[in-house]
């Protein structure tokens, strides 16, 4: 960490900073030394912060017009869409914003998987990130229940029923979650209360996430430890700030495309039918960002084991820093891991697709194979590969190989790969 002895230039600034060192903090954030070879995959942290703030602002506004009661919720959302000034815009930004949030978080997570950012000394950053991801899923799930359409109701029913798989306590737990004997009025009001609360918990965790990041500093595409500050780093402001803003602009184009041109494409039309506890829609699917886990759940024919497999697929990521035994971080220097990485990406996409298809016939077989491969990748391949793989030579720093001063001529030939 830099700049603990920062002194503000103005007298007032000094007076304030002596009492609450916010100016020291902002100086630290400005000068925070950042690897100069960060690529665009590193801009998603900033994009995610933007998404969270957007959800909070639009959410608080929706909360001013939304009525959290099973008899009025559906109509109040239609009221937001038709009567409230710009209500349609705010709701579409909030609903599509959730999807954009998950798009960004998946890119952010797969970035970490490729460049080995979860490895020592960044395990705590990674684990906090996983907690944020879990809370995001809970928040989005409960948000999706609020409009009280058919998908809201039956999605809530299926997901809360996951807990009924727990031996002995299952029924008690589901009744406790529902506040009744089925998803009903009390369920909706408590989901609204928690949907309001969780994003602020996420905000707190984001602060811890960044704090933990600023202890070792950023990882970088070639995954080596850097001297900071040095010729390998640049100050966060203006270099990274501008790059992040530019990336955010591109991201906003995609965001705006969904909001203005196809605001319902990521949703499900059944959710424009009011909840009916007597009829389940023919084909219930969760939102796209939960599909891979849903596919894992359904690919196991036993109820309890299906639920266990689904939670295990997330928990496995939490312990990933200890499953991957390789000391080399970046996939650039791990020729075999690099290929397996892309196979994993494909595997997760296949799982997502299978989660949207009916669980029968060939779909089910493919989903089973993809589920098995997911676990094999993390539990068997990664621990063994880290010990066996012949990695490529890693450059000593960022700058020298680029300028041709490397002691390792092999790296000079490949320089375009890691700048």
């Amino acid at each position, binding site marked *: 960490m830099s700049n603990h002895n920062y002194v503000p230039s103005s007298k007032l600034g000094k007076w304030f900073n002596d009492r609450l060192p916010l100016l020291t903090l902002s100086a630290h954030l400005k000068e925070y030394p950042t690897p100069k070879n960060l690529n665009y995959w590193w801009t998603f942290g900033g994009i995610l912060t933007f998404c969270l703030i957007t959800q909070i602002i639009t959410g608080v506004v929706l909360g001013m017009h939304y009525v959290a009661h099973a008899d009025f919720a559906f109509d109040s959302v239609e009221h937001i869409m038709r009567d409230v000034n710009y209500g349609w815009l705010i709701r579409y930004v909030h609903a599509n914003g959730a999807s954009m949030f998950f798009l960004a978080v998946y890119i952010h997570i797969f970035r970490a998987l490729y460049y080995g950012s979860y490895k020592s000394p960044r395990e705590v950053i990674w684990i906090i990130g996983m907690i944020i991801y879990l809370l995001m899923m809970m928040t989005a799930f409960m948000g999706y229940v609020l409009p009280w359409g058919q998908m809201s109701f039956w999605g809530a029913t299926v997901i809360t029923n996951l807990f009924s798989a727990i031996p002995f306590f299952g029924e008690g737990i589901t009744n406790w979650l529902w506040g009744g004997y*089925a998803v009903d009025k009390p369920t909706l009001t408590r989901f609204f209360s928690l949907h309001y609360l969780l994003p602020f918990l996420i905000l707190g965790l984001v602060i811890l996430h960044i704090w933990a990041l600023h202890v070792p500093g950023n990882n970088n595409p070639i995954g080596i430890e850097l001297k900071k500050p040095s010729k390998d780093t640049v100050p966060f402001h203006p270099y990274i700030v501008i790059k992040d803003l530019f990336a955010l602009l591109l991201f906003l184009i995609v965001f705006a495309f969904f909001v203005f041109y196809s605001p319902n494409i990521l949703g499900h039309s059944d959710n424009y039918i009011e909840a009916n*506890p007597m009829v389940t829609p023919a084909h219930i699917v969760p939102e796209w960002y939960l599909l891979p886990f849903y596919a894992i759940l359904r690919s196991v024919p036993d109820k309890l084991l299906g639920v266990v497999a689904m939670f295990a697929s997330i928990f496995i990521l939490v312990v990933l820093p200890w499953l991957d035994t390789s000391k080399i971080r970046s996939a650039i220097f791990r020729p075999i891991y690099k290929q397996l990485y892309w196979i994993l990406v494909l595997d997760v996409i296949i799982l997502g697709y299978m989660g949207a298809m009916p669980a029968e016939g060939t779909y089910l077989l493919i989903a089973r194979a993809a589920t098995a491969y997911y676990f094999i990748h993390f539990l068997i391949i990664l621990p063994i590969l880290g010990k066996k793989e012949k990695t490529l030579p890693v450059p000593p720093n960022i700058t020298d190989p680029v300028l041709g001063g490397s002691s390792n001529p092999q790296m000079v030939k490949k320089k375009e790969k890691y700048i």
Partner: protein
Amino acid sequence: MSDEKKVQRRDFIFTASYALGAVGVGAAVWPLIDQMNPDRSVKALASTEVDISSLEPGKSITVLWRGKPVFIKRRTPEEIAEARDVSVENLPHPEKDEDRAKNPEWLVMLGICTHLGCVPLGDKGEYNGWFCPCHGSHYDTSGRIRKGPAPKNLEIPKYEFVNSNTIKIG
């Protein structure tokens, strides 16, 4: 003071105050947890009476009881025969049809798939009973699970015939 570990009066005081503190925290937290359990007004909706006089054989109706759908099916003789003509030992959840339908013509059960809670569709599936579209569970004409991820037969709620035209559920 000597180095040897001796239980002292102070240790006792520490342990006692931790224990008391834990009890106090527990007592404060329990109301916060229990408030989420089904409340008195929900529990009060304990029973529903249903008029079944207009139900033809082979037809069924769905009524809501405690927020849950309940199927009331008037079975045809073929359906009853099919349900009783099964060797119970080989079922995933062995139950005799005689134990599930006291009056063989009337099958009363919760319309909630024992997998993850969807409402199964009637007259569907490989066993001519119910089929759950959510993850593909097949139930027979007695509502017993025959194929698919659901672990149990459709649950039979407490019910009684008030008279020949009325069923009281709950």
